[in-house]
Structures are given as structure tokens and as C-alpha cells.
């Protein structure tokens, strides 16, 4: 099944390579991978959607990477997930108004309207992005770029290491509970 992991990484050269290399060589399927800066300078944040039977093992292997600071599995906790898509849609002058109406209805912004194409930007839940793409596909999609998932927990709980970048957070540990390692 799919699991959404939030990973905080010490931002050193090659750290993304290490993470991606791990997914590849252990045979974990990445459905989505997004990396960028976090609120702490020097700490990057990754959202990885991984298809794995044994997510505990994925978390533990990720945690072996020296630059990995925390790994949290947020699959079963309240979380907001967003994805941004840019789409360049071909459209005739006659159909442009209809296309723009589709965009407006589904919450996409037309950010570049030309004589034969429209570029839309949509930030929404991934399923809504899928829906919008399906809706405009009949017009002809010239280009499509999706950002991958961004995930953040709801409420006050935060996946953060704080400015001190304190040592080794291993939130999905579960070591004391033998049931959690039977997967």
C-alpha cells in the first residue's frame, strides 16, 4: 500500500542521491518524491509517497542514512496533502471560453492565455489535480508538470527538528512494541 513519509534531511551535498539510491536499490516504489527547503536553514524536507509492504523497513533504512534527521509516517494521521500542476492546453479561439470556464469551475488559474494555448496552474489535493487533468484532456494537453505531493500534519503537531537540529529523531520507532515489527 501507499505510505506518505515526511523526511527531514541535513542539507549536505549528495543527500538526495543517497535517499533516491536507497529507494532504488531496496526496490521500494516511489510514487511521488518532493524535496525543498524547510523552516530551518540547512534542513531539507522531503515528502515521499512509497508503495511498500513493510513501511517500517523503509523508515529504518532511511534512518540509516547519516544525514536523515527524522522520518515520520503520516499515512494514518490527519494531514493536508497538496500538489501543484502546470498545464499548457491547446485550444481554438472558439473553445477558449469553455476551457477557461472548466478551469474556473475546478479551481485552476489561467496564468498565461495565448491565441492557441492556455497555461493553467492548479494547487489542490492530488485527486483534484487528476480530475482537472482529465477534464481538460479532450482539448489537448501540450505540456504537463506536476510537483509531487507536499504533506503537512493538521493541527499543532509539527515535523520539525527545531533550529538546534537536535540529534536523531526517529519518530516511527516503535521498538518497544514487538507487534510493530512483525510486518
Amino acid at each position: 500500500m501507499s505510505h506518505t513519509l515526511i523526511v527531514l534531511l541535513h542539507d549536505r551535498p549528495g543527500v538526495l542521491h543517497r535517499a533516491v539510491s536507497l529507494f532504488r536499490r531496496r526496490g521500494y516504489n516511489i510514487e511521488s518524491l518532493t524535496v525543498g527547503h524547510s523552516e530551518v536553514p540547512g534542513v531539507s524536507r522531503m515528502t515521499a509517497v512509497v508503495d511498500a509492504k513493510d513501511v517500517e523497513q523503509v523508515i529504518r533504512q532511511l534512518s540509516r542514512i547519516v544525514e536523515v534527521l527524522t522520518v515520520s509516517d503520516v499515512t494514518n494521521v490527519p494531514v493536508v496533502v497538496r500538489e501543484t500542476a502546470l498545464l499548457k492546453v491547446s485550444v481554438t479561439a472558439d473553445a477558449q471560453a469553455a476551457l477557461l470556464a472548466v478551469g474556473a469551475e475546478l479551481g485552476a488559474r489561467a496564468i498565461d492565455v495565448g491565441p492557441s494555448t492556455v497555461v493553467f496552474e492548479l494547487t489542490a489535493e492530488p485527486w483534484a489535480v487528476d480530475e482537472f487533468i482529465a477534464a481538460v484532456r479532450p482539448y489537448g494537453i501540450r505540456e504537463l508538470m506536476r510537483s509531487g505531493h507536499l504533506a503537512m500534519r493538521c493541527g499543532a503537531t509539527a515535523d520539525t527538528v527545531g533550529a538546534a537540529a537536535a540529534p536523531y529523531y526517529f519518530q516511527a520507532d516503535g521498538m518497544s512494541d514487538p507487534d510493530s515489527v512483525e510486518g
Partner: protein
Amino acid sequence: MSTTLEARTGAQIMCEALIRQGVEVMFGIPGGAIMPFYHAMPEYADRLRHVLCRHEQGAGHAAEGYARASGRVGVCIGTSGPGATNLVTPIADAWMDSTPLVAITGQVHSALIGTDAFQETDITGITVPITKHNYLVRHVADLPRVFAEAFHLASTGRPGPVLVDVTKDAQQATAVPEWDVTLDLPGYRDDRERAVDHDAVREAVRLLQRARRPLILAGNGVIQSGAHAELRTLAERTGIPVITTLHGLGAFPQDHPLSLGMPGMHGWVHVNRAIQECDVLFNIGSRFDDRVTGKVSAFAPRAAVIHLDVDPSEIGKNVRTAVALVGDARRVLRVLLDELPACAPPPSAWLARIRAMQEVHEPRQAYRRRPDTPVLMPHDVYAALNAALAARGSYRVVTDVGQHQMWAAQLLDWRRPRTHITSGGSGTMGFAVPAALGAAIACPDETIWVVVGDGGFQMTNQELATIQQEGITNVKIALINNGYLGMVRQWQELFEGRRYSGTPLSGPSFTRLAEAYGVRGIAVDTVDAVPGAIAEAWDHPGPVLIDFRVEREANVFPIVPQGKSIGEMLVSADRAEEPPCLTH
């Protein structure tokens, strides 16, 4: 040596950093991108010995052998490009066997990185999957911190290899080193220092106390953490029999009444059957490798598994675990022993049952001498070597990979930790000769026996020149020469209708080859000559190679065919064992 406040080159800083880490010897080969480091070495030669090897693979295995014999971090060196890629095999080997290793490589000038410069290779990229961590150092100021981190990472937690790639300009640049560095490793923790989970310990104790058919499986972790005394106390206090993996050999004395032997693909029948019948399996410091488990879904089907490992990612990776104990084996065992002051031993019928199986399937029966053959059998060599080891003491045995390695594991009696050094997880042929060179330097007062096949020997025998140049006298090589890549040949015989594709192997005159390197060569092809040759080798004040010309088609038995349960063993070429009948 420069005074503290004097600026010095990066290369000098590297030497001083190594000395500060307690390094006394390193194994390597120079080349363009690492020349500044070599230029600095002579100034430090009184404290930092450099051993020039003949191939970087040899340098890497020598560093591994040094580390495995001594428990210290091994250091190997290569230049950029091919020097670095030649280190990849020993680095992978150290990764699989959790051997503490720091590999230092030169890199092209930082301005040339990314231009496909002469001898440029992305060795940090190449070694990402086979190192605990690696570094590309472009700035001289980073060297003290990077070396401190590299040795910390290699030697703590679950040990392993760390690669430090240093650009030529970082070696040449000058700086006043700042030794008072703090390790900048916020994502790393030494899992040996984890707080012991007392609830889990109590749960483990409860399982051990209730068990009727318990077993202890001891691995490399016992040796790495120095927990052999605690293991013995645990076994003796509880009466639980102990089996030892390939890398656990020596963790528990094999002549102990509770010692059963090695499990797995070439384990003894009674050991594998005991695993299949046990109700609690306490794994201390081994990782349930597939060569131990066989078909994993059929492994230890009745057992509640207690798994003690320093690496949390090993828990539950291959085998379902009832109780997880993460941490240093010695530390956790001490806590466990406090919780287990006394324990009623398991029903004596359990050990009796295992010993009865051992009687029926007498372990070494596959190696009984056929009265009709005058041919020297491999087990004749092991019997004589085993007797000599017992009589003389003060030895290490380094084995390579293949049939001879399994015979050594099966037929020699392992008594003390770190006396058995081999390539396990990676199965690297060519390991033994250079690893023995490293072990010989680590243990100059002991005799280092190399047991090696004619295939593996020919992969790295150039290191005999290193042995000669370094004046190493305490290496004695027992070449088990059968003229085949024997383990592959055995599989071809048993499973592929004797189609010997790519396995017959001719060699040079091994005794003359040895003599060319200043190594005494002795050829043996009769049983009677074996003990004398071993004694002669032991007493000769220099390195010796004995070319034991053994039966060409001898096999390792028992064998669990690939993909089968460890309950299904071939005990000879024509007889498969019945699956075990179980009692409840």
C-alpha cells in the same frame, strides 16, 4: 611534525588526523591524485606505517583483515579513478560484513571535477550503496572534522566502511588545523548507546524461561561487541544450546557441551533440525542472512524469535520477530543477565534430542575416508590442521570463499573470538591472502593460517610480493588445490548434471610461484605427508605455501539446495534427508 599553530598542507593534516585516531598502519598504492598525501607520509613514518600493496583490492582486504583481527579500524588508500574503483570490492565486502574500514582516495583537482578529467571517477557516487557514509573533501579546512567523523562512523554503532575522497588541491593547500572540532552528525546516533528497553528485556527473559526447546544463535555482533563472556554466562546459566553463524564462529567455544555448531546452507543436520524444532530462538548479533535461513518462510516455523541487534533496521527485515532488543550485544546481555539471576534449564530431553540427531547424522560422516582411495581428501588436510591448531595455539585462520571455506568452518574447532576471519556476506574470492597480510601485521606474534582454494588464490596472489617486501614471516598458506572452481563445480555436479561449464581450472606450479616470491613452497599429495608439512610450515621462520593437491571432486555436505527449507538437506550426493519429524 609541525607545531600546533603552524600552517601545514592538507596532506600533513591527513597524516596527523590518522595518528590522532590511533592509526598505526595503512595499506595502499599511490597515484597522481593522492601523491601529495604520499609526499607527506615519510615525515610521519615512525608512527604511521604504510604498507605498499600490489593491487588496491589487496590493500582493501588487508585493511579488512587487520580490522577483523584487531577490532580496530582498518585504513586503505588508493588514487582517483581506477585506484578508487579497485577499492570498491573490499568496500562492498566490509559493508556486507560490518567491518570498520576507512578508505581514503585521491580525487582530481576540484576545478576539474565534472570535466571527465584524467583518472576522474565519481567514487562518492559509486560507493553510496556500499558505505555507511562517504565524503568528498574539497577544502583543507574540512579535513580534521571529516576524518574525525569518518572514524566515528566507521567504528561506532554497527561498524562499516566510510570513504573519504580528497581532491588534490585540498591535499596541497595549507592551513592551521583546527583539531578541536565538534562532530557535525545530527542525523547519526551510535545505536550501541541506546537506552536498553527494560520491558523488552523482561519479555525476552519471560520467553526464555518458559521455553521448552530454546536455542541461541550467535553471530558477528557477539564478536564485534566483545560479548562472548556474557554469551557463555547466559548459556551456562540457562542451559540453552548455542549455534554459531559463519561470522559467529569463535564467539562460543566449540568444545563446550552446549555448543552445537553452524547452521544454514552448509550447517550440520542436527543444527538445522534444532532450528526447525525450537520454540524460542534468541538471535544475538546476526542478521538472518539467507545462507542461514534457507527458504525464509519455512525457517524456524515454531519459534518465537528474540532478536538482539545493534542495527534497528535488521529487526524484522527477514524474519518475524517477537521481541526486539536494539543495542550493543554486550550491554544488553548484561542487563538481561541481571534480570535472569537464575533459570531452570530447559528440559534435558531437548539437548538430548539434538545430540541424538547428531548421533544419527554424525556431522563429519560425509567426510569419512573411503578405504579404497589413496587420494588426498580435503578433510585429511583439515583434520591435521585442526590437530596442529589445538596443539600449538596462538593462531588466526583466514579463509577465502568456496568449498575450502565451508570445510574450514565445519571441520576446524573454533574456540576464541577473532580467530576465524573470512568473507561472508559478500563472498569475495581473493579475500584471504591480502586479509591474512593485514591480520599478520595486526598480530605479529601469532601464526596466521590462510586456507584458500586455487581459484581464489589466483585472484590476489600478487600480494605475496607485499608479504615479501614487508618481511612478514607469520603467514602460512594451506592451498586446497582441486583444479576447479570447486563450489560452482559442486553445484554443477549436484544440480546441473555434471555440466562443468567454466569451472575446470589450471594453475601454475604453485610451489614455484611461491618460491618466486620468497615464500617456501611445499607440495603434498599423500595423506601421510600432511601433518609433517603443517609442522614444517609452522616451524619455518618465514612465509610458507603448502600446495595440497586434493581429490578434485570432493563435495561440501550437508547442503541445503538454493530456495529450499533448511529442513531439506542433501547429506551426500545420493541421499536427501527426509524433512524433520517434529515433536510437540
